């Protein structure tokens, strides 16, 4: 049996010292605080910045006029190496981040000094099939910090000391379940999904009581026998269907609906044994937050054979469509299309490509792709745009209500898709469940770009081309800026209206995390994780 190991790094003593230094370091986050996150822009209070996953900050101390003078404030270096994808949460002077694979670290945002650190003991035979052992961040509610672990536990930690309050088993790592995403805290509940879509399992979405850790509901993302939708899986392929929920979703408190994306059906590149649409893979699910019942779904890529997960966080916004005010959910999907849906009903409103794509002639009136011929992976390789990595992956886009633009990191890349073994072997790390693979196109001038898309039409307003790849999301601010980074290690600020570069710094190694901004003592900071360090910048 595993036991948790609480690592008190300077622990309570440091907390006491800091408490004497500043009373501001006494956080207590209410649901109401998260609901009205824009009223306290000094805090980055939930994974997506707000429940709508806008990743937009009202802070404007750093703006288009002074961004060029940004300087490094401090750097926090990890105590171990790994894939570092954290998006920090900041509350009243505390910065909570995760270190790979499942450590939580609380830092003082003024100095970058650790206040406490908690590391779970992980099984030696940990299974991480088709994913990296990483973690993208925590959730906070009350005075508690919530984190999921790579061996599929949800843990509640005391916000001031890191002491474990409760710990619940979400799913069985021996079956391939592994969690890398930040949980979402709503009113009295903690929501989490899991990864492991190549491991031969069924995806799930869970809600837990924030006080006790008791599981309140579970939604399986692949139906079982007797349930509607199981007929979309050939034979008994639903048993290992995948459709995991490996990134953080969004929440509409008025409709009381969660919006969560699902990943690929399995095996990824060989759909022979899973004839049908494979519900609810590669979909956006609208889920009643009280009951866990699915209110509607929209499947972007029916019977996907290209690994085009719908994992990036959906953006919720209200805007007029054809003169009528609508509650919308928009998503720049890994399959290359930008979708606009009615988030009350799931009605498809529009969808246009935001990168070069060669697999669909277009979308029909209901948003279903009209397929080009011969797009399936093949033994000799089938060239398709976008590549397996996709037009966008897990990185978060941002939305500025000031410009009406959605800022995405878009990838222009094609690949030959190969078809391999048709069958899954559940929890078999040797085969990783992919059933094929890819080879990127020889001589292809592939690139990534930060693109500003009209939020309601998907039409590109500007782009800023990057050399090489990017795995970083974007951050938009009321200062008229968009921040992002690339794999060469450039962290940069663009003019949100024009895309003109205003500032950049080379942090020395690849970034693959979403930047955030926050303030303390009246000073605004921007932060990004890159390779083995968290870099924090501010005005001199």
């Amino acid at each position, binding site marked *: 049996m595993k036991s948790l190991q609480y690592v008190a790094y300077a622990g309570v003593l440091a907390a006491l010292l800091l408490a004497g230094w500043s009373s501001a370091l006494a956080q207590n986050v209410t649901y109401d605080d998260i609901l009205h996150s824009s009223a306290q822009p000094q805090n980055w209070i939930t994974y997506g910045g707000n429940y709508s996953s806008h990743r937009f900050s009202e802070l404007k101390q750093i703006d288009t006029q002074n961004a060029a003078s940004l300087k490094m404030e401090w750097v926090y270096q990890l105590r171990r*190496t*790994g*894939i*570092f994808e954290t998006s920090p949460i900041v509350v009243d002077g505390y910065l909570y981040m995760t270190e790979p694979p499942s450590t939580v670290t609380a830092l003082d945002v003024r100095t970058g000094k650790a206040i406490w650190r908690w590391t779970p003991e992980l099984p030696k*035979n940990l*299974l*991480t099939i*088709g994913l*990296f*052992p990483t973690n993208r961040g925590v959730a906070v509610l009350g005075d508690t910090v919530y984190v999921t672990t790579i061996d599929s536990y949800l843990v509640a930690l005391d916000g001031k000391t890191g002491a474990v309050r409760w710990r619940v088993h979400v799913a069985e790592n021996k079956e391939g379940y592994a969690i890398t995403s930040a949980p979402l805290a709503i009113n009295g509940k903690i929501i989490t999904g899991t990864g492991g879509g190549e491991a031969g399992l069924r995806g799930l979405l869970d809600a837990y009581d924030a006080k006790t850790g008791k599981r309140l509901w579970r939604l399986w993302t692949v139906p079982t026998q007797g349930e509607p939708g199981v007929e979309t899986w050939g034979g008994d392929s639903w048993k290992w269907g995948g459709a995991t929920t490996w990134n953080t979703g969004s929440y509409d408190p008025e409709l009381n609906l969660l919006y969560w994306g699902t990943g690929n059906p399995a095996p990824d590149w060989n759909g022979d044994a899973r004839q049908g649409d494979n519900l609810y893979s590669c979909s956006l699910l609208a889920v009643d937050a009280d009951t866990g019942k699915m209110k509607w779904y929209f499947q972007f890529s029916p019977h996907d054979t290209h690994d085009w997960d719908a994992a990036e966080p959906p953006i919720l916004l209200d805007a007029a469509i054809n003169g009528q005010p609508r509650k919308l959910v928009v998503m720049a999907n890994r399959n290359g299309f930008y979708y606009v849906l009615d988030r009350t009903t799931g009605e498809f409103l529009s969808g246009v490509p935001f990168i070069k794509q060669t697999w669909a002639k277009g979308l029909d009136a209901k948003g279903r792709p009209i397929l080009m011929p011969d797009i399936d992976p093949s033994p000799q*390789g089938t060239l398709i745009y976008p*590549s*397996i*990595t996709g037009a966008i992956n897990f990185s978060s886009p941002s939305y500025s209500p000031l410009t009406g633009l959605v800022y995405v990191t878009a990838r222009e*890349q094609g*690949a030959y898709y*190969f078809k*391999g*073994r048709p069958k899954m072997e559940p929890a*078999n*790390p*040797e*085969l*990783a*469940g*992919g059933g*094929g*693979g*890819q*080879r*990127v196109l*020889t*001589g*292809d*001038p*592939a690139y990534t770009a930060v693109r500003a898309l009209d939020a309601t039409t998907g039409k590109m307003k500007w782009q800023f*081309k*990057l*050399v*090489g*790849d990017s795995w970083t999301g974007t951050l938009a601010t009321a200062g008229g800026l968009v921040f992002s980074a*690339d*794999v*060469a*290690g*450039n962290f*940069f600020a663009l003019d949100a209206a024009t895309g003109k*570069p205003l500032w*950049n710094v*080379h942090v020395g*190694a*690849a970034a693959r995390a979403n930047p955030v901004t926050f303030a303390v003592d009246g000073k605004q900071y921007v932060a990004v994780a890159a*390779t*083995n360090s968290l870099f924090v910048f501010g005005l001199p």
Partner: protein
Amino acid sequence: MIRIRSSRVAALVFILCGFGLCVPFVAFAAGRAPQATKPAAAPPGKPLFEGACAVCHGMDGSGGNGPNIRHAAARLGPNGIEDLVKVGFIGSGMPTFPQLGDEKIRQIVDYVVSFDQEASGTQPGDAQKGKEIYRSKNCSQCHIVNGQGGNLGPDLTRVGTRLSPGSLSDAITSPGLKLPLDANLAERAAFRAYLMQRAVTKDGREITGLRVNDDTFSVQLRDAGGQIHSLRKLDLQKLEDLPGKSWMPSYKDGLSETQLNDLVSYLAGLRGAR
């Protein structure tokens, strides 16, 4: 049986640096006892490779979002590959595969080694004669092999692991026309080096040279005199590619077909100092 020597460690570090990650890997590599590695019999490792490795490295090892590893054996040797599978590339995205166990990892290694043997293929000419042609044509005036030669053109010490015989032949007869772009995104920067570019700064200064490094905000060009110019793209009014241009003369008419084949064979055999 191949023992990890200092050159092998250096090669490993080079690869890591290629990932933008110069971490000292020496700690685990140095002092390792030699290990027996099975000869390249391939098949048992094929399904293992396609299940665990192909998603990043491509079905034939030619790369995807992970690097092209078709010549990994020439660069690292079987033991070096085995180390990477067991330890991973720290920070690069290459995970460890401890759950596979030693035997299956060695089967994968054997399969990866077979890529290199397959890619090396049969040479079209006589490498010894090719070496003499390399000398008589003064190729070393601009190219380095094993530390000897000029640095205006690419270092050819490992060119046999990067270019096929066909590509080598093209590079000799039509320099600049074929850029070796068959690399993934992570590798591409390294392969961009021999593209000629012309930069014009906002104050009117013009620099033409070989692209040494390039990223979103900066570019380094090496001019005909060997001087390296490090330029911020925001300071430039123009930066243009000069595809097809090269400082290397064409040897299309200066070599017979036999001589060309001999030279290609010599270059194809340059697979790094051991």
